[in-house]
């Protein structure tokens, strides 16, 4: 198991958002996480990545306890996440929002700017080259000077993936890669995810509301309902699972 969640609990005010939730993500897989609205999917992501503290329970990454770590340190362990609404540094150019990603940049220290100019320059050239390669991989090289906010929805998602590639993580948490992407482009995004998973041996953990997207992309799939995991299995198993169907139907009745 690359990522393991053990009996996670989280309360917001009077609402038990996550209840005794336990599951794991296998190395090299593209694991999906589905559930009806308000089932606590995004909350689980926030708990894993350190944005919210857990009330009780543990989170292990590569066997290491990361429960108490802040997001930036979790990132350095090799775990990357995207956000539901693409928020990718909107006021920065595409290229800059990629350049920000690499770790151990000399120039990120204030004093080094003034003392280690030439070394920083070297690094910058290296990272710029890498960023261009990433953009070429996504066929977006002509967008490099565009402001991120001006990109169409699908390309924003690709930029997110691009940022991930700059960081070379081991595990990527994708929060709704389908949101805001026109259906025609969705397959393209999915293909990129699969290609990255295969080529670079990156593990993906995907939260998605849209059943079609997830059935296409993920195996296995974990189902969460009302803050606790209901079941897990291959897409076929999930499709035919009576409990899952009820949970989704129940939701529709409520709305």
């Amino acid at each position, binding site marked *: 198991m690359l990522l393991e969640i053990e009996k996670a609990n989280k309360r917001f005010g009077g609402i038990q958002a996550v209840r005794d939730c336990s599951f794991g993500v296998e190395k090299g897989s593209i694991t999906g996480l589905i559930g009806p609205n308000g089932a606590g999917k995004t909350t689980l992501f926030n708990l894993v*990545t350190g*944005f919210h503290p857990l009330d009780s329970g543990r989170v292990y990454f590569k066997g290491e306890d990361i429960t108490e770590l*802040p*997001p*930036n340190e979790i*990132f*350095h362990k090799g775990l*990357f*996440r995207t*956000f539901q609404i693409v*928020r*990718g*540094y*909107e*006021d*920065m*150019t595409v*290229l*800059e*929002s990629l*350049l*920000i*990603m690499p*770790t151990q*940049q*000399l*120039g*990120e*220290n*204030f004093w*080094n*700017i003034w003392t280690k100019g030439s070394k*920083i*320059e070297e*690094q*910058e*050239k290296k990272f*710029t080259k890498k960023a261009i390669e990433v953009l070429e991989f996504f066929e977006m090289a002509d967008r*490099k*000077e565009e*402001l991120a906010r001006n990109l169409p929805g699908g390309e924003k998602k690709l930029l997110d993936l691009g*940022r991930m590639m700059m*960081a070379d993580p081991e595990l990527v948490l994708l929060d709704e890669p389908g949101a805001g992407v026109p259906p025609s482009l969705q397959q393209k995004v999915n293909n990129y995810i699969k290609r990255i998973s295969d080529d670079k041996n990156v593990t993906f953990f995907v939260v998605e509301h849209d059943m079609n997207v997830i059935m296409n992309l993920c195996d296995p799939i974990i189902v969460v309902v009302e803050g606790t995991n209901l079941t897990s299995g291959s897409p076929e198993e999930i499709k035919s699972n009576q409990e899952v169907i009820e949970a989704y139907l129940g939701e529709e009745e409520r709305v």
Partner: protein
Amino acid sequence: MLSYIASYLVMASIYGIIALALNFQWGFSGLMNFGIGASYMLGAYSAALLSSAPTAEHLGGFGVPFPLDLVGAAIIPGFIAFLIGFPALKLKGGPFAIATLAIHEIIYLIVHNEMWLTNGVWGIRDISRPLYSQMPQQYDFFYLLIAGGMLIGFYFFFQKAVRSPWGRVIRGIKVDEDMALMSGKYAWSYKMQSFVLGSAIAGIAGGLFVHYTGFVSPTNFTPLMATFIVWLMVMVGGSGNNRGVLVGTFFVWGVWTGSEFLTDFFPGSMETRAGFMRMFLMGIILLIVIITRPQGIFGKEKIIPKYLRSE
């Protein structure tokens, strides 16, 4: 008249340095610092106390010579900003602004009341003015070289800083702090660095101010004169654009200085209220800019990474 214009330019340069510092904090780092004037005040008093001759009236008498005491004028406000940062940076947006405004008020109160420290409302007189005795008549022109030079220096300093990888992280945090965290950047540390750096540089502007006027008192640093007008300069020029901020500074300070002459157009009975006319004018300029050009005269600058251009 010429020396009047020179003195206008000197003050505009000093304000320009504060505006650059604030633009760094707000325009690039997203810190809504309503206490920038407090750093300016602390810098002014640090320089005054460090350089003044020994006196029984207040602390001071360290006799630090001119360029060196500016270092003190940077370190002291910077260090105080560092201490304030611990509680204040827990807050974001509006509450952060309110907290910094409250700190501004408190520092003002201390400077205003603690005679032993700052000589209170009396202010500090006879602060050394470098080379003043050599050219009392041309002093404005001479000081313009110092203040203007510093302004240009800080302009390039900030231009380089925001374009560096360090500045990139700072700008990234402004756009999206969660995202920056999830990119492995320790956002708090960068915000603190920005807060301290901006405050220290506003402090240097304070030091330049006291050596120009030779005199300092708490009333130089009311919220209007020390904070609001700087915000106006940044907003008019375009936050997040150093060149725009410089133009904004010279424009706003020009209107402020020029509107002093408005009194000439008022009948005698209304002259006394002309002062409020200027305050009104400042507010109106801000509102007009916000409604017609929310991004300021220049708007935000699009920063293209340096090494892309050379290719």
